[in-house]
């Protein structure tokens, strides 16, 4: 599914003091494309994901999402950009422990002016799609690892993102749950045409991706 480029990174570098983590990386992702970013630990893949998603600014280079350059945006502009354009799935779920499943899903919408009923409806619809309709009011502590990650996926989708960023989304899950989560991501990709950039170090998970980008020592090698 290729409908034009949605995300572009041009000549991206990132330095932490003397340490150069990214060394002039350029890449682009098309609308509806499922891209896996693989590499050894310390190869710079998480840093690249952070920069492309607007969590972090590059030391140099440009990031364009939907044609807009976000490399020089302020912190608040980046936050708004993230809310409106991207969704995140983290390895350790990062759910808020004091919020129920549906409240966690609705978290990105809390600062948005909208009726609370509408906020709840959107969150519960997504949880139904994740087959968690019976767990809406449970706190994260009462959910299994797979359920937590499905809540996290629903949270990533609630603001209708253009690109979904997943950083080792199955890293904390057993193999059966890993398969279920990957099925959900592929379904989102196939059925809804969502662009996904997934960081992983497990090569088995990259097989079903549209494209695999390998990184080594801060550079794209393939």
């Amino acid at each position, binding site marked *: 599914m290729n409908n034009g480029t949605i995300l572009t990174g041009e000549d991206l570098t990132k330095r932490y003091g003397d340490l150069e983590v990214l060394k002039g990386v350029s890449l682009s992702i098309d609308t509806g494309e499922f891209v896996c970013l693989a590499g050894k630990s310390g190869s710079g893949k998480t840093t690249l994901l952070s920069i492309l998603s607007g969590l972090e600014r590059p030391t140099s280079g440009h990031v364009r999402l939907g044609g807009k350059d976000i490399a020089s945006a302020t912190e608040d502009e980046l936050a708004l950009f993230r809310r409106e354009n991207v969704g995140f799935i983290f390895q350790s779920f990062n759910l808020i422990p004091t919020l129920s499943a549906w409240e966690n899903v609705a978290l990105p919408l809390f600062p948005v002016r909208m009726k609370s009923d509408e906020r709840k409806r959107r969150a519960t619809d997504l949880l139904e799609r994740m087959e968690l309709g019976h767990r809406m009011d449970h706190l994260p502590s009462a959910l299994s690892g797979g359920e937590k990650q499905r809540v996290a996926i629903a949270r990533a989708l609630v603001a209708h993102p253009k690109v979904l960023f997943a950083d080792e989304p199955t*890293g904390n899950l057993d193999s059966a749950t890993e398969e279920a989560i990957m099925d959900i991501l592929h379904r989102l990709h196939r059925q809804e045409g969502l662009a996904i950039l997934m960081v992983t170090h497990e090569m088995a998970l990259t097989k079903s991706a549209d494209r695999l980008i390998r990184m080594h020592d801060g550079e794209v090698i393939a």
Partner: protein
Amino acid sequence: MNLRYLKNELYYQKRRTMAAVIGLSIGIALLIILNALSMAYRRAARVPLQEIGADVTVQRSGNVPKDLTGAVFPCSAVTIRDEEVKKIEALPGVRGVGRAVLLWVFDPDRAWIVLGVEQQNSVGPSILRNSIMEGRFLKEGKSEALVEAAYARQFGIKVGDTLSVAKRDYLVVGLVDASRAAKIAVANVYLPLSEAQRLAASSGQVQAVSSFNPADVNLLFIKADEERIPELSSALRTMMGKNATIGTPDSFLKLLNSLFALSDKFTLAASLIAILVAVLIAFKTMAGNITERTREIGVLKAVGWINRNVVSQLLAESVVQCVMAGFLGLLIALVAAYGLSFLQVNIPIPWEMSPRPHFLPGGGDQIFKTIRLPVHVPWTLACFAIVLSVVIGGITGALLGRNISKIKPSEVLRHE
């Protein structure tokens, strides 16, 4: 600011919430109770004078009479001239003046403490009319007397008897329970003021110590505007000279053996320390709580919360916790105030204000006014404490929220 998130955070993180609320509430309770105690001692110090319907008493000390026979003035209360009284009545802040004449009368068979009181005046010892146990109050211009009830019991004096005081006869028209009234200027026998003035003016012993005209007095009771008492006290000292004894609530306060009674500065310093402790507790507890939530704040920012959203959420949490602490502190203070209100305080009455001959039984004993410490938490203090809690919560939440909102989500979410 999201109310649901706020409620859940406070409810599910009970340990954090309780630590912040209890810590701050102790500081707030300390602040309230310190001020309530200080006010209670001030109220207590006013009681001896209030009982006699006055805010200030004026006396002038003089020489000890050479010969203790007939009517004499105690050395702590000699003549205050009628002209001086008129000038005092005109002083700013004076709302009313009560006059009295206190005499010791040494008759061959008995010694009396005699007080001449006005027939009708809400200021001064004529308020004894409210403590009549039997008979009636005095009528001006008549040779009649009231006798203190305990004294009457001791000597078998009854209403209708005739007393001979300094060779004058007085019909006993009533018995008065002076123990229910003031401890200042306590006497055995109460006469109309004009009778006491006549006794004093005709006494050679009185005139030898301090010349006395029939319109003069030796005790003054002044009702004054509360806020002008210090200024009035100073003016009276200037007018009456170095031998004047001016009794004010402050002079009683100094007699109370309490740090709270001794100094406004102590209460102010203790209150400031309490506020500082409250702020530090709130700040430290909430700073710890927010540090524990660094990752959570990172998640909020990652999913699109801007700095203002984060600050307003943390600010609201902080204010709500501090308001809860304010109300808990108020409750603790109210319970403590109730407990402290059972404490008794003994207010010493200086001998000069109720002089009795030392050589008579009990004449040298220290007189105390014993009352329950009137500890109350006024609504103004309660409101101040709540407002202070809101301010502490606001400042703490804003500072900590502003600081934590600057974190970069990538830094706190990176290492999993």
